[in-house]
């Protein structure tokens, strides 16, 4: 049985300007020790998906409208707060984007590291401190025994993110959710942090959900990949399938935006237009207005659902564009009058 089985997760924000359907029917599953990458542009619903799993959505205005998330036989979305508190931190941990604000500035690193350990396990302070020091050593903090008693402001950003990883993994959870763990960090530190997450994952056999913008990171670390757009999954499958046999125009466009894969000296490719406004109902394919592929018609009605193409490789095909066309045949954006209108409005 899968460790985590998410089915038809729907989360909306009920704002004054209308209902924002941030996550609109997402399903995926994750086995023990596996790494799942969730990629997509800002606002595609990646973070909200994970926050929903942890029930960290601020309510109101947010609300989980439906779906199930079976974690080891229990539904995370309907369990009581008390049960949830036993799972949070103990069996599912989370690493946040910004290490500068995710540690409490008033408490020593040691205090923060042992707090969750002592809350979830019956250990005395001394054992806990020793475990905290070991955890800091695991993530590569030099002189951990000394530095464990420092305060967060005495650590650099990269070190704080290491502390966050140590803190999240000190209880040896089954699942680690990493919400863009390297976004706020220096490029030189990013690779180190990813290495540490990967290494600790192998040591502990933890499953990881990795939210990121960085397709390179996904290719290097993930077993499975979900591509999200406008609150839904556009394509999912193993990393190889999504990278080498990408079917969905959005996935292919995303790949085209990777700077290192582009010709040097030319203007960097960006997907024209802006992500869809999920507070308005979306008809047909959400990516249609920005789709660079030759079209055979305009998709109408319901949004296309995920269809399994090959073994575990799913994608949401609207059936109105020729995504088999080589990526080089991408049309300049002025060719479709529809698209210009949409893109112009967005800009």
């Amino acid at each position, binding site marked *: 049985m899968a460790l985590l089985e998410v089915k038809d997760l729907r989360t909306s924000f009920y704002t004054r300007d209308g209902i924002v359907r941030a996550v609109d029917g997402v399903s995926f599953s994750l086995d023990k020790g596996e790494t799942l990458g969730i990629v997509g542009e800002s606002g595609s619903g990646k973070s909200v998906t994970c926050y929903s799993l942890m029930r960290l959505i601020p309510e109101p205005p947010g609300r989980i409208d439906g779906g199930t998330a079976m974690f080891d036989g229990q539904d995370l979305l309907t369990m009581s707060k008390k049960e949830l508190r*036993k799972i949070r931190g103990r069996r599912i941990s989370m690493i946040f984007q910004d290490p500068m604000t995710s540690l409490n*500035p008033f408490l020593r690193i040691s205090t923060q590291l042992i707090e969750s350990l002592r*809350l979830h396990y019956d250990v005395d302070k001394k054992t806990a401190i020793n475990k905290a020091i070991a955890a800091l050593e695991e993530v590569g903090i030099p002189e951990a025994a000394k530095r464990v008693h420092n305060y967060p402001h005495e650590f650099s*950003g990269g070190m704080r993110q290491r502390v966050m990883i140590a803190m999240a993994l000190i209880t040896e959870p089954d699942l680690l959710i990493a919400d863009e763990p390297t976004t706020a960090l220096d490029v030189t530190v990013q690779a180190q942090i990813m290495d540490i997450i990967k290494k600790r994952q192998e040591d502990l056999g933890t499953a990881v959900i990795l939210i990121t913008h960085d397709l390179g990171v996904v290719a290097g670390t993930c077993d499975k990949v979900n591509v999200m757009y406008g609150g839904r999954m556009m394509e999912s499958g193993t990393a190889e399938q999504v990278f080498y046999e990408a079917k969905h125009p959005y996935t292919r466009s995303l790949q085209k935006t990777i700077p290192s894969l582009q010709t040097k000296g030319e203007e960097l490719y960006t997907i024209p237009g802006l992500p869809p406004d999920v507070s308005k109902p979306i008809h047909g394919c959400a990516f249609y207005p920005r789709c660079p592929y030759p079209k055979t018609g305009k998709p109408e009605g319901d949004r296309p659902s995920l269809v399994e193409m090959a073994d575990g490789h799913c994608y949401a095909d609207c059936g109105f564009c020729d995504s088999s066309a080589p990526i080089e045949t991408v049309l300049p954006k002025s060719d479709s009058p529809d698209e210009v209108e949409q893109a112009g409005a967005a800009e």
Partner: protein
Amino acid sequence: MTDHSETAVLGNEAAPLPKHSASEIAEEELVEGSSLWKDAWSRLKKNKLAVASLVIFLLICVFCVVGPFLVPYNSQEQDLFLGATGPSAEHWFGTDTLGRDLLVRTMEGGRISLMVGLVATVVSLLIGVIYGATAGYLGGKVDATMMRFVDLLYALPFTIFVILLMVAFGRSMWLMFVAIGCVEWLSMARIVRSGVLGLKKQEFVEAAVSLGYSHKRIILRHLIPNVLGPVIVIATLTVPAVMLLEAFLSFLGLGVQPPNASWGVLINEGQQNMEIFPWLLMFPAFFFALTLFCLNFLGDGLRDALDPKSAKD
């Protein structure tokens, strides 16, 4: 890799402290696990006015608390034949119209004034911080209801409220504590709430929730310590405010009752005889004013020390 992190640390330390000399930065780097409190204390120590105020304030406290044991008079012992006399070798501050030694009365009055100030502040601190933090953290309808209740109490005219209390329960010093406490926690609650509203959106609170901590734990361990900076500043500024309120009530005859004395009572007695026996007003007023000055300067200094961003210049 270590080199990267170390240089980053150095950069962070140096950037916000451009006025520090190189030696000072080096010194700070050597300190093991310097907490924000220690940093604030070292900043406060550099503020001469605040340190002087703190010293004078502590001296006044010692004067009021220890003083009465060293003076060979009792604050209620009358000498009607002596009457009001000016400062002399026997009575340094002179005597009042009933022949009571003013020095010892000033000391004991100070005890009561300081006690009112401290007790009422502590009470308002406890209620205000917990109330404000709970309202701010829970938010939504709970917050709205709790804060409307605060607005309601704010709207109550203070003097009338006290007079009503006195009418209902009779005059007593404790009632005055209650009355003052009821009013002073309101601003504390508002300040703590606004601080918590800002803090709860920070990721460390989210992280605390994601680690499975209970609301109570998050409020007490993670939120309140982070708002203590402004709270301490407000508390130091509340003490003089409370003392003023007490003086005001005593001046109206609603506060401390004779023969007990507070600075407010002494000033009231003094101003009645101001033209004939000016020392009766001068001494208690001097100590009262000095205490208020010290506490205000100390509060200012603490604000600058605890929140370096708000410092002038």
